[in-house]
């Protein structure tokens, strides 16, 4: 979860703030609210469980915030360590598939050849989709 905060932080710095602790850095010691925890739990399906876990989260955010001390003015953000690599293009041939039986073995429940999932009512969200 802290990875996103770091990513956002980096992008904010690239927007031209100087390297010294900015207003954003102070938020490293901000409390993580119960509302935010609930939101994160729903988004990422993790379980923060205890107050100890939340405290650990806050420490992790503070640790990552120290990155803001780096002056990244005028530096193009690196978005991927692969940025200099060549993206391999595959020919449009069918070479995989046809392993339904094997894949279905992974599933806790199976009906005929379908995976079975709980009814579409995950965490109070109902979608109608094809």
């Amino acid at each position, binding site marked *: 979860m802290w*990875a*996103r905060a770091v*990513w956002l932080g980096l992008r904010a710095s690239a927007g031209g703030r100087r390297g010294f602790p900015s207003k954003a850095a102070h938020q490293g010691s901000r409390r993580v609210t119960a509302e935010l925890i609930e*939101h994160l739990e729903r*988004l*990422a*399906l993790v379980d923060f469980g205890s107050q100890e876990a939340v405290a650990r989260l806050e420490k992790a955010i503070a640790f990552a915030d120290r990155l803001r001390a780096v002056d990244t003015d005028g530096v193009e953000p690196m*978005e*991927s*360590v*692969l*940025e*200099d*690599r*060549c*993206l*391999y*293009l*595959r*020919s*449009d*041939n*069918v*070479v*995989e*598939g*046809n*392993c*339904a039986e094997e*894949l*279905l073995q*992974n599933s806790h*429940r199976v*009906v*005929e*050849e*379908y*995976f*079975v*999932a*709980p*009814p*579409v009512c*995950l965490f*109070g*969200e*109902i*979608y*109608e*989709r*094809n």
Partner: protein
Amino acid sequence: MATPMLRWCCPGRRWIFAGIGGGSRHGRGVPTGSTSSGKKGQSSVAQQPLITAQKPRKGEREWAAVVGLEIHAQIASNSKLFSGSQVDFAAPPNSLVSFFDASLPGTLPVLNRRCVEAAVMTGLALDCHINRKSLFDRKHYFYADLPAGYQITQQRLPIAVNGSLAYSVCVGKRWSQMVTRTVGVKQIQLEQDSGKSLHDNLRSQTLIDLNRAGVGLLEVVLEPDMSCGEEAAAAVRELQLILQALGTSQANMAEGQLRVDANISVHHPGEPLGVRTEVKNLNSARFLAKAIDYEIQRQISELENGGKILNETRSFDYKLGCTVPMRDKEGKQDYRFMPEPNLPPLLLYDSGSLPTGADPQQVIDIDQLRERLPELPRVTREKLVRQYGMLPEHSFALLNEVGLLEFFQNVIKETRAEPKKVTSWVLNTFLGFLKQQNLAVSESPVTPSALAELLDLLDRKAISSSAAKQVFEELWRSKGKTPAQMVAEKKLELMQDAEALEQLCRSMLEAHPQVVTDVKKGNPRAINKLIGLVRRATLGRADPTVIKEVLERQLSS
């Protein structure tokens, strides 16, 4: 208090759309503002905006609607976007699924070259700027048919941006008054399709088929330049034809190869834009315009009644003919976009920037793709109008039906008849029969050669046009005989003996002196009786126009 008249103007077309507050003289029923009172049962949605003679009453202001579209088209490729499993509409569940599609650990995405080419071609056809460098991202959300928990898409830097799509709408009651409109193409991006979920409410479970998971999609985002359902439907239709002409997607809405989401808002002209709603699940060409118009009307009604529009996602219920909210989550969806760590940037080249000595399989040359672009529908239509002198709306009709253009061109090739005659026969008679029996062109019992032969007979004046229609009907019903054979069998040939016809006419005139006097007195219609008599005497084998000509000539001498 007067019944509220809800006025919505489709600006470019200068229509007034009269919504009915309580009653209106103007024709078909339109869903009223009483959606707030729950009358979802009203399934009648106005088919087309109606002209009203009324001007906006004092105190009532016009509304303008703003419609933007997000269109997902399945790429026509053999294998999926990032894996080598097959793309097919109908196959046993989960049989077209690779380990990557099932998101098993240790699998990685490998980009399909054909999908990139399809995206570039579509971008070029829509006059987009092709980004030489584009990036892939992950869009996270949880759903049972998305095994990885995220979709690989292009959020930051898509493959093509800033294009335009020209389409035509009719502004008159008749098909013949067409104008061209343009809608901006904001961007085109490559992304993965999800699997399919089947809801089994009886047993409280959802069945998942991943055959579709990972199939390549082109998402085409159209700017909110449209103002009503009809414009949106026309734009989608033109995009469909373009994709089909390019071969980048079969774009068949019925098979889910083309899906449309609409973003709709209303406002008073001159004021800021209103809150928009997103309407999903517009998967039928027939209901696209209806659904959008319904939502526009719903928003107008809501606002006129003092309500507010929520920035929500709605779905179109085909049975009820209205949009319904999809149950809202607490707070907006947060997709936590992040760069796809397993894919480097996608780099495209043109003839100027091609790296020397590069493996051609690994390099995509935009200029080469541009050269190989097939002819676009717009160009095909223009050529038809120029070459055959047909009206623009005829060219639209020819391209609007699968296989019809080819049929038309095959007839033209084999017949000596005038193109205008061919156009008329193909679009009126032939198409009429097809539609009546709900057949595709490929299922037609009449071949282009047969129709060409028939039109030749007509052109040579060997048969009359009513005889030709008869023969056509016969051709449709029974196979195996050529038009010439049918004409011979049924003795439908036009009388070729001019002398005999002259004599027949003369004798008819002598036998009916009263009619002759009537005509000479100045009643030209009296001649019709004579024409009828002569026709019957020739057993219908003389052309009525020729008979008339002969009689008139003889009468005046």
